[in-house]
């Protein structure tokens, strides 16, 4: 975790690119902030007092390592061997907190006093508000006005944790616009504020930094699989992808193990030809959004289009540059999972295993019928979050 001299073709290079994707496409107003981060993040992450504090909090506060659970009834159903990586058991209910803990420790070491963040469904907002409460730092979270209405319980959680939730009223009033507003806030407050981005998106070094903080997921999977099966390598790792932070974490330590098939589940919405979809790799083309060059859903004129997904966490018109590269290089296989398929998978997991998954994670589960894995193959699914926040949606299908 020390140097940026990654030999891997799938890791970021010293210019901040994964293949042709990445970079730092930011207005000059953000340049000093991003440069400060770029010049310091690897050094700080490598410091022993950082690692001690980070690992200590992951263990005692987040509850890591999270279990790797052999889902026997689900395995029987699909006639293969399925393990669930239980990120849903993290404090605050999803993997998001791995990143917010890492970033707030980094922000403190950079001398920042305030935190700004964006959120869609509110999971990253809650994870950010949580660590700000823990560290006694001021927290402002931008959230699309429409999402504020749709996700009232998470808004209440953030407020209870002491964060200020500011509505993003511009554009479509959802995650994309909340991100724009958080970036504008950072432009207006360049010296005392750190921006905690919630996914592997944004200008370099954010995608790499967030992936490193989430990489604890695949680090643990390797150790746990070795204990359970005698081999640290599964045949498949499956994760859902919106921006792609849980997938980045689940794939990270397997990127160079080419025998491990990496599978990404995007939000197909009503279907990729329906006009109501968020399947970026199927519908997007190369472009620049939120500071990096990646694959982007856009009009012919280069205007960003509004995605649709039943899952607010996957409702994003872009994808992290690392994933764009994994797609481009065929290192990962992408599926577009419809709203209906994700609901069916959520119901199935609940009944077969007694685990109610987040709608996002249900997209990863919904790849199983397509996978055709054999009984002696090992499949790891990253169960990125729990479904409590989605009950209002699930209730419509009961």
């Amino acid at each position, binding site marked *: 975790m020390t140097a940026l001299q990654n030999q891997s073709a799938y890791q970021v290079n010293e210019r901040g690119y994964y293949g042709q994707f990445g970079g730092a496409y930011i207005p*000059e107003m953000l340049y000093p902030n991003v440069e400060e981060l770029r010049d310091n993040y690897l050094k700080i992450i490598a410091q022993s007092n950082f690692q001690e504090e980070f690992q200590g909090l992951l263990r005692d506060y987040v509850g890591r390592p999270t279990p790797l659970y052999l889902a026997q009834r689900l395995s029987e159903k699909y006639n293969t061997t399925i393990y669930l990586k239980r990120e849903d058991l993290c404090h605050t209910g999803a993997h998001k907190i791995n990143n917010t803990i890492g970033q707030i420790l980094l922000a403190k070491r950079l001398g920042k006093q305030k935190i700004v963040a964006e959120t869609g469904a509110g999971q990253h907002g809650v994870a950010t508000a949580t660590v700000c409460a823990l560290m006694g730092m001021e927290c402002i979270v931008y959230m699309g006005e429409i999402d504020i209405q749709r996700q009232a319980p998470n808004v209440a959680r953030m407020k209870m944790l002491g964060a200020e939730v500011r509505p993003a009223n511009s554009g479509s009033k959802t995650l994309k616009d909340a991100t724009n507003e958080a970036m504008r806030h950072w432009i*207006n407050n360049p010296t005392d504020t750190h921006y905690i981005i919630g996914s592997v998106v944004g200008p370099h070094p954010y995608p790499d930094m967030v992936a490193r903080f989430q990489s604890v997921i695949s680090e643990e999977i390797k150790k746990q699989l070795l204990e359970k099966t005698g081999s640290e390598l599964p045949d498949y790792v499956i994760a859902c992808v919106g921006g792609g932070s849980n997938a980045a974490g689940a794939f990270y330590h397997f990127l160079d193990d080419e025998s491990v098939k990496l599978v990404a589940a995007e939000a197909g919405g009503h279907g990729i030809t329906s006009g109501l979809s968020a399947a970026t790799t199927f519908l997007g083309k190369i472009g620049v959004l939120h500071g990096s060059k990646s694959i982007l859903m856009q009009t012919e004129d280069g205007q960003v289009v509004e995605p649709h997904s039943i899952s607010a966490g996957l409702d994003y018109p872009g994808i992290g540059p690392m994933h764009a590269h994994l797609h481009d290089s065929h290192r990962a296989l992408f599926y577009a999972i419809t709203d209906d398929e994700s609901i069916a998978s959520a119901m199935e997991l609940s009944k077969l295993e007694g685990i109610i998954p987040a709608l996002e994670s249900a997209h990863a589960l919904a790849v199983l019928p397509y996978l055709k894995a054999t009984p002696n193959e090992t499949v790891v699914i990253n169960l990125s979050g729990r479904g409590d926040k989605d009950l209002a949606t699930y209730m419509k299908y009961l």
Partner: protein
Amino acid sequence: MNRIVSLFQHHPSHNLNVYFTAGFPKLEDTRRILKSLQDAGADLVEIGMPYSDPVADGETIQISNQQALENGMSVKKLFDQLRNMRDEIKLPVLLMGYINPVLQFGVENFCQQCAEVGVDGLILPDMPVDEYLETYKPIFDQYGILNIFLITPQTSDKRIRQIDENSAGFIYMVSSASVTGSQTGVTHDMEAYFARVNAMNLRNPRLIGFGIKDHETFVTACQHAAGAIIGSAFIRVVQQNENLEEAITTYVSSVKQGL
């Protein structure tokens, strides 16, 4: 010679650069506003290419971008509107926007169209300096299009030097750490920053932008640079007035009164 370079050679101070959004308030207002600005006494103009996600812009310009897109504005439409503008427009004309629509149009195709219609320079705030130098500069140079860079109070001297060495025309000096449309006016902190930059003896003249809105702020800015840029305040003028020509004449005269 490029019209921007020529302007600063012949007219080194008190240059008023006005920004407006193409296709706003109405789709076909672009040329009308451009001509009115020339007639009213602007020294150069920046035509904004609307974008769905203008992160460097405050609310006023965001709303104008959104309205222009709803009106049907696009890069292609803008070039159609600007065709033959050089029959009547003598001012230097810049296009300002975000990089994604330019990438989708194709950088070479874009520069070629700029040259054809008589655009002199581009301001693309989210185009990284390094990417420009490595990839796009030869294309800009081939078509004689100047790329205008921004500097801010947080930009290091080293980076200002790098930008100065690779610039022509002028440098866009952002007055404060903010998005467009800030209401701070010109503060003591800003004056220290302007003085620091002036003491560097840069090759290129500077125009000060962000927070310039009226005669007073314009005159103050002109004490520290070759002129200033007005954006959000002008958008409000065209937004609020039915008679565009009259409103633009009144506004520009008030800003430049006695100059």
